[in-house]
């Protein structure tokens, strides 16, 4: 069957609503009867990616595609891009500013967690143009 598609805009300047969209997706998955473990993996991976968009890239767009056998989340931003993906994927690597660290972010665990909780992660990034993350979680 056709996947269910949801489109969200993430504002880059409003920290108070960061993470709202992953909450929405979590609710939808629960209503659809996905198993708790799948919901948890999607929620954590999407939340981290959504926060990255706000902290590092001034917001962007998220498309979620839900099928009975997999959930795909695509996040696209027009931020600064990631110069060294290998480094960014390392646990503990972060370029977060002090003010962001004061908010409790910047442990450098976001991308490693996205990798850990997803079955497939594709990152396309161009410095100065933006970043696209495609996260797939199989049921």
């Amino acid at each position, binding site marked *: 069957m056709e996947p269910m598609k949801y489109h969200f805009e993430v504002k880059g300047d409003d920290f108070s609503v960061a*993470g709202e969209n992953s*909450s929405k997706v979590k609710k939808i998955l629960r209503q659809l*009867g996905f198993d*708790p473990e799948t919901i948890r993996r999607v929620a954590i991976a999407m*939340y981290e990616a959504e926060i990255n968009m706000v902290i590092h890239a001034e917001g962007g767009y998220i498309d979620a595609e839900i099928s*009975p056998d997999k959930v795909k989340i695509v996040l696209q931003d027009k931020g600064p891009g990631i110069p060294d993906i290998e480094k960014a994927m390392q646990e503990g690597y972060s370029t977060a500013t002090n003010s962001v660290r004061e908010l409790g972010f910047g442990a450098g665990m976001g991308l490693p967690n996205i990798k850990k909780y997803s079955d497939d992660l594709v990152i396309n990034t161009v410095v100065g143009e933006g970043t696209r993350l495609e996260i797939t979680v199989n049921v």
Partner: protein
Amino acid sequence: MDKIYWHSVTLEKDNCKGCTNCLKQCPTKAIRIQNGKAKILKERCIDCGECLRMCPYHAKKAVTDSFEILDKFKYNVALTAPAFYAQFSIADNIDLMLTVLKKIGFDDVYEVSAGAEIITEKTKELLKSGTLPRPTISSACPAVVKLISIRFPNLIDNLIPLLPPVEVAAKLAREEAVRKSGLSESDIGIIFITPCPAKVTSFKNPMNLEKSNIDGAVSINDVYLKIAHKIGKISDSEIEKLSRSGRKGVLWGVAGGESEATESKRHICVDGIHNVIEVLDAVEDGKLRDIEYVEALSCIGGCVGGPLTVENSFVANSRLKRIGEELEDNKNIPHEDDVFWENPISYKPVMNLDDDISKAMEKAMKIEEIYESLPKLDCGSCGSPTCRDLAEDIVRGYASENDCIFKLREKINILARELNKLESGDIKNTRET
């Protein structure tokens, strides 16, 4: 064995005006208004009692036992929650409050705070062992445990698998009563003076026990007057030394008391069911990884704010703190190992649209479609909490589009226009052209 599901909060139909006060406050969206009367979707209700508080017409009721339940047993023990002490301005000492219970018909008393002290020690031990998932969530408030079982399946494992203090106290109370009275267990009534419907449900329909040790639950507001009349008449010399627990156990009755007692350095205490949901959402998203322990209480202020209490919760809160702080810490807390859940708690997916994901997806798309056609005012006049809920109810088959008064008006307007046309002969003309 599949038991018929029973829970405490019900509707007094005659009093219900069909207003929408409770509709929007229910944290699990368990209320609908149908044919002018509220209705509780029982499998979604967590017995938090928010609707009881909200209803201006007192149409929501908690089913509890009447005081006559004492007649069923030869020997009755009153189990008292700390919140009970805080109900009376005259009560500056716990022994007075316990003595008065013996004057109104109980043979003995047992403090739930004594159970709380045992659970405190066990919690400390488990937290130290580092074997529990982080953050560990308290399982003392049954409304919260129920909420987790229907809405936060990923957090079931985070619940500390310990019995609530009231069950531990009940078990010890029964053992003591058998010793003191020489009667058999079944002749003894362990009766809890309850601040809330959630506890009542947890006794009649336990989630993690085969059978509760509590034989009856009488609400605080039902015994309030009986006690208020007696309490002033007790002279100092009549007051018996009945209390046994110390400061920490008693302070479990106010929000924050449990966290303080368990000495967790990185804890959160969250009270009020809507706040609890917010924090649990954050835990589920992995946002609170640095937290060790979450004390979560459905009622604002803790059990002193229970829906079946009488005193204003802020007044009760400060009073209980005052009573508690005057006590010493109990140095002789008995060691009990038999305080774990007997059965694991399982996820009850009551919010599911369908057991089959593909069918659920079809329904979800239909919901989106209907939702788009609704006015998105969330006025509640249709009897569902929000426009989206109406869309969901239509797809589930509980409601129809005409329940939306705006939709209905649209249809009536169209009809009226048609009628007008008919009267002025327009219809005939249009047919001919």
